């Protein structure tokens, strides 16, 4: 029974995949992405892990063109987002983005945060938009706080509103840029729970994260990046549980056992 409801929910979400080919991005002479190939199938959850400065956030931001890549192609849903003639705004409607710093609009209530783009971009009526917003706030467990303003919410609550805001545009793909890195430890769990449910419902997700437990449990695939290249990718269980590359092994040893001191360094 539970099986069939979750597959029904999966059908509700129109999934879009991502296909990245030979992607390069430089800031001046500093090349941050050195030829990345990455596929995310519709309905798949892919976690990007790696040390800071490895280029994983830049890669994520290239997908919805917050960063302009220098070389390579990206296909998102039916769009080739690297095509110079692409309608960026139309493409972005299909791609929800969740930021490390939440970036909620502080002059708007939680509900208005979720309705403003619906009314201004999708031209939904105020009533329709509010209904969608309330549904999505309920989805993240915050419908009772719809009238609060961002500064009246905890970090974890703000991030859940930010997820509801992105979901209110009915995206086909969700990008998460270290969604729990700026949170107090005790609110991380709520945000991860929301993301876990989203994954269960069949949402296509590309997640930059340091939460190895989450990646291992929820991701279909894990991609380890270092120095602007993909070092290793595969099933979550394999990459995190039994990595084959020395750099992956070293990174995971440090992340999973922070008290470990490498004498050789």
């Amino acid at each position, binding site marked *: 029974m539970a099986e069939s409801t979750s597959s029904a929910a999966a059908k509700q979400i129109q999934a879009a995949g991502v296909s990245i080919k030979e992607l390069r991005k430089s800031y001046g002479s500093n090349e941050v992405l050195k030829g990345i190939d990455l596929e995310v199938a519709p309905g798949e959850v892919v976690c990007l892990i790696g040390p800071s400065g490895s280029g994983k956030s830049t890669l994520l931001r290239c997908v919805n063109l917050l960063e302009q890549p220098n070389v390579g192609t990206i296909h998102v849903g039916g769009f080739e987002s690297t095509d110079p003639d692409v309608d960026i*705004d139309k493409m*972005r409607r299909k791609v929800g*983005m969740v930021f490390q710093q939440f970036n909620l*609009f502080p*002059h708007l209530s939680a509900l208005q945060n979720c309705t403003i783009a619906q009314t201004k971009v999708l031209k939904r009526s105020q009533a329709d938009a509010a209904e969608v917003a309330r549904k999505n706030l309920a989805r993240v467990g915050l419908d009772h706080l719809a009238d609060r303003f961002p500064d009246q919410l905890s970090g974890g609550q703000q991030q859940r509103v930010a997820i509801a805001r992105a979901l209110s545009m009915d995206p086909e793909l969700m990008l998460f840029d270290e969604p729990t890195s700026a949170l107090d430890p005790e609110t991380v769990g709520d945000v991860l729970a929301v993301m876990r449910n989203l994954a269960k419902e069949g949402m296509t997700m590309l997640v930059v994260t340091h939460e190895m437990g989450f990646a291992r449990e929820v991701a279909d695939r894990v991609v380890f990046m270092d120095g602007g290249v993909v070092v290793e990718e595969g099933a979550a269980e394999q990459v995190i549980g039994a990595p084959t590359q020395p750099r992956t092994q070293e990174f995971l040893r440090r992340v999973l056992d922070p008290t470990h001191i490498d004498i050789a360094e």
Partner: protein
Amino acid sequence: MAMTVRQRARVSRSVQYGLLALAVVLFILFADWASIGKAFFNWDSAVKQFPEIITLALKNTLIYTALSFVVGLSGGLLLALMKLSSVAVWRWIATLYIEFFRGVPALLVFIAFGFGIPTAFGVRFDIYVTVMLALGMVAAAYIAETLRAGLQAVPKGQLEAARSLGMPHWRAMVSIVIPQAFKIVLPPLTNEVILLTKDSSLVYLLGLAASQYELTKFGRDGITQPNAGLTPLVIAGACYLIITVPLGILARRFESRTAKTKG
């Protein structure tokens, strides 16, 4: 006989209060109150100012200020957006405009609008339009810099979040960035209104009909009456304070409110 730090502070404070009190007492004792009263506080002359100083002069000052603030605010917003534009030519034009109108006395701009433009282009504006344009264009230069700072103070993530939701750049500015920028610049913007209120006195240069008198011109007209002394100007000054002091209080209240939301 060494004093503690606290004792020394108390003595120092007493001495300062004592000196101030002494100065006041000496002034009261030795000032020529009859002359002072005649010059500044002539009751008969004061009574003659009413009610026109309120119903006419104060009203006109408010009208001139409001009209020029409308031009200043919209012009200032346009200039601020130009200054932040990715098109270099817009930035240059805005910079030139701001440097020029901030650097030239408002008095000169009034003369240019009142006498230069009618001669040069053969158009004669209504007095209200002239004030609105002359004062408004000067105000726009100041307000532009204030607004630019406010726009830049809105975190970059706000624009990114709005654009990520599919909003075009202009829509993100109108719905997300500009409202937040205005909240940030509310206190300095209130100060701009105070400056404008006072600068509206320059309108006297244009030559006014009696019905167009504002506070300063009305006061200056008042002191030409026999035995009026300077009392009409004192009353006019008081009327300016009726406008500007509440604005100052308002600005401080905005400031403490912004400080609170930040903390």
